[in-house]
């Protein structure tokens, strides 16, 4: 089983890398298409360029979906092999994070028919997978504190969705900053990007609340303390508060655009800090 999981992992990396290339071709194709049609006022050539560019995009999506399926398989095989959800070490959690980013991204792509975010989110997912290859991937037995399957599985599953959503919001924010004067032809309008960021936070914010709460519940059962200002739980609370600040600034003070995008980038930095925190600090979560 763990061998199958590794094969599926390799397949994921291959499919994802190819998907990224195709997304790139798609975006660049869109650019040359726009440039061409501007110069030429639209012609037969334009239409065929158009075709090539959407074809690349379509295959890109198919490959991204495949990568997602392989990654799912890899996680499932690993779960079967280890007998517990992917939460025992950094390797498993990196895969899970990448899975979340892909899942949320594909959901948004299908829902809003917008491929451009993939240009940022897919490489981030690939980065996580590459990072996973640098940490020990042995199946480790669970220390007593982690032997609470149901609670932990839900805790981690929800965290994955939240992190995925925040990754998406980050992608939208970065593209927004590139596009803020609507000067880049091959990117969607800045208002669209701004709003994508907001929508992603709408998905992620309640999930992150649940992550913090389930973490507290688990700590209460395992240690008798629902909150001990452990670095990891504190970092996740702060991450949540930053996105809370983003929502309030937006709804109550009308923050849009650049300032709002900066908050999303700060939030994603906090997300990464929460995630990689184990590397910087000790604490109760330091088994990762």
């Amino acid at each position, binding site marked *: 089983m763990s061998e199958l999981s590794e094969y599926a992992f390799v397949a994921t990396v291959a499919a994802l890398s190819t998907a990224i290339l195709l997304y790139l071709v798609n975006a660049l194709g869109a650019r040359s298409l726009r440039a061409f049609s501007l110069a030429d006022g639209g012609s037969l050539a334009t239409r065929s360029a158009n075709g090539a560019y959407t074809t690349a995009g379509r295959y890109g999506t198919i490959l991204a979906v495949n990568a997602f399926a392989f990654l799912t398989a890899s996680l499932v095989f690993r779960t079967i092999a280890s007998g517990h959800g992917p939460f025992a070490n950094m390797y498993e959690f990196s895969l899970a994070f990448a899975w979340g980013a892909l899942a949320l991204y594909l959901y948004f792509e299908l829902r809003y028919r917008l491929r451009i975010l993939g240009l940022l989110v897919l490489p981030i997912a690939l980065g996580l997978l590459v990072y996973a290859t640098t940490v020990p991937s042995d199946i480790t037995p669970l220390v*007593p504190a982690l032997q609470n399957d149901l609670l932990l599985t839900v805790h981690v599953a929800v965290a994955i969705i939240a992190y995925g959503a925040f990754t998406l919001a980050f992608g939208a924010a970065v593209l927004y900053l590139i596009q803020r004067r609507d000067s880049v032809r091959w990117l*969607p309008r800045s208002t*669209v990007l701004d709003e994508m960021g907001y929508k992603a936070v709408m998905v992620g914010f309640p999930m992150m609340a649940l992550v913090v709460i389930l973490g507290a519940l688990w700590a209460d059962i395992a240690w*008798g*303390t629902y909150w001990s*200002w452990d670095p990891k739980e504190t970092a996740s609370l702060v991450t949540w508060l930053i996105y809370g600040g983003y929502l309030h600034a*937006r709804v109550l003070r009308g923050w849009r655009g650049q300032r709002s995008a900066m908050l999303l980038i700060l939030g994603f930095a906090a997300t990464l800090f929460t995630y990689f925190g184990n590397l910087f600090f000790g604490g109760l979560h330091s088994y990762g």
Partner: protein
Amino acid sequence: METQGVRAVDGAEALAAPPSASRARPSGHLWELDVLGRVWRFFTSVRMALVLILILTAAVLAGTLLDQAPPSVIADPASYEQWLERARARYGFWTDILNFLQLFNIFHTLWFKLIIGLLTTNIIICSINRWKGIKTTVFGARVRMSETFFQHARYNASLAAAMPMTTAAERVRRALALSHYRVRTETDGSSVAIYADRNRFSRFGTFLSHLSIVLILAGTVVGGVLGFKDPEFIVAEGATREVGMGTDLSVKLEHFTDEYWLEGPPKDFRSELVIYENGQEVKRGMIRVNSPMSYKGVRFHQAFFGQTAVMNVTDTSDALIFDEAVPLAWQTREGSRPVGSFDLSGQNRTVYVIGPTSGENDPLIPAGEMRVEVYRRDTGSLVAAENVSQGTPKAIGDLNVDFVRESRFTGLQVVKDPGVNIIWVASALMVLGLAMLFYFPHRRMWALCKALPDGKAEVRLGMTAQRDVSLTDEFKRLRERVGLALGIRPDGGRTAGGGDDV
């Protein structure tokens, strides 16, 4: 006079509330004296909330990056001094400055609590402030909107219906109801006004999530005032210990077991406990890391464990003055050896028992021996020190000491926290509130059916942006449904303006 500011804020109509409603100024010319109003406005300020959250973020960042002294260390000035000395090795020159700023104990300082207190006040006042607006939106929304509303609504459309006004209105109503909207109508001679909405209670989500934060803080206060926590409750195998803290409970450890995976890491720790209330056995059971035991609100959690030395001490007249397991629950600073101690008050002696460094060959204390150091209790000066091998009593100063055997102790966290239930209820409210708000957002649509002179009708539709989420899809869907109900093909009909196509 003093309430002017409050009213100005409260009166903000929810429907079209400008984002800056909370910054409304009182119109009275005595505004300089409007103290309550000013304080109120100060606390409704979102800028303040943002600043507080940023300060919290910075504090928390510092708290995670700097070593934090454990509460037990803080409680005891002497051990805090020691702790600081060790911190000095790491932070050098900065140690005193950091200590002065209380940055080694951020989460328990007054200023940290002050910020949390301010944020809570902030939240309470903001919620009260918005209550009226939310209530109006949920229960008292206007059904009839003006012509200009339909012209300027972010999403709007105008459809021509080849039927009388009342028929058209009825069909619009049905179409909206079939889309799971709740529909209200108001009719006058020449037009029917329609208001339809869905998930309107989602508006209370904001209120629920704010309320839950206040409740969570209340829960921590209740726990702090009415509860207690003993994170280092140590019981040796076979021994019984009183819980204290105002309870009549005591705990006996029957047996402790630890198991390991073949690969080495720990697999299971479990303690078999008996609980006595006023000396009567009331409960017995096994606890492990993820399954604590609880009796009358007092919970016993498995926290740590270790080794004990069963010691046996007689005095010069051969009377047995000590016979107990001594938990070696601490570590010596040099050599990291497990160490424990006990007092012999009658003899004015404190006895330290030090075990060999685990897992290595200890040059000072061979396996099977304990080093016993006897100190004067009043002055702390050393009387005598010897190694004692198991089963061979030895005279140390005026005491005769025997190391009988080794056994185990369990380290429990004993907690009573009546606030914790409030916290879980509040957490559920928080998740419920947020889910309502973001996964079931409130949607509102207005329509106006006007009779035209030729006996036909004109139907206008208008939807305002909900916060700022694009409603393009939703509006398109509704417009098509209404259009079909009025006999207009999906691609027919005039549609105007509005919206981003995302």
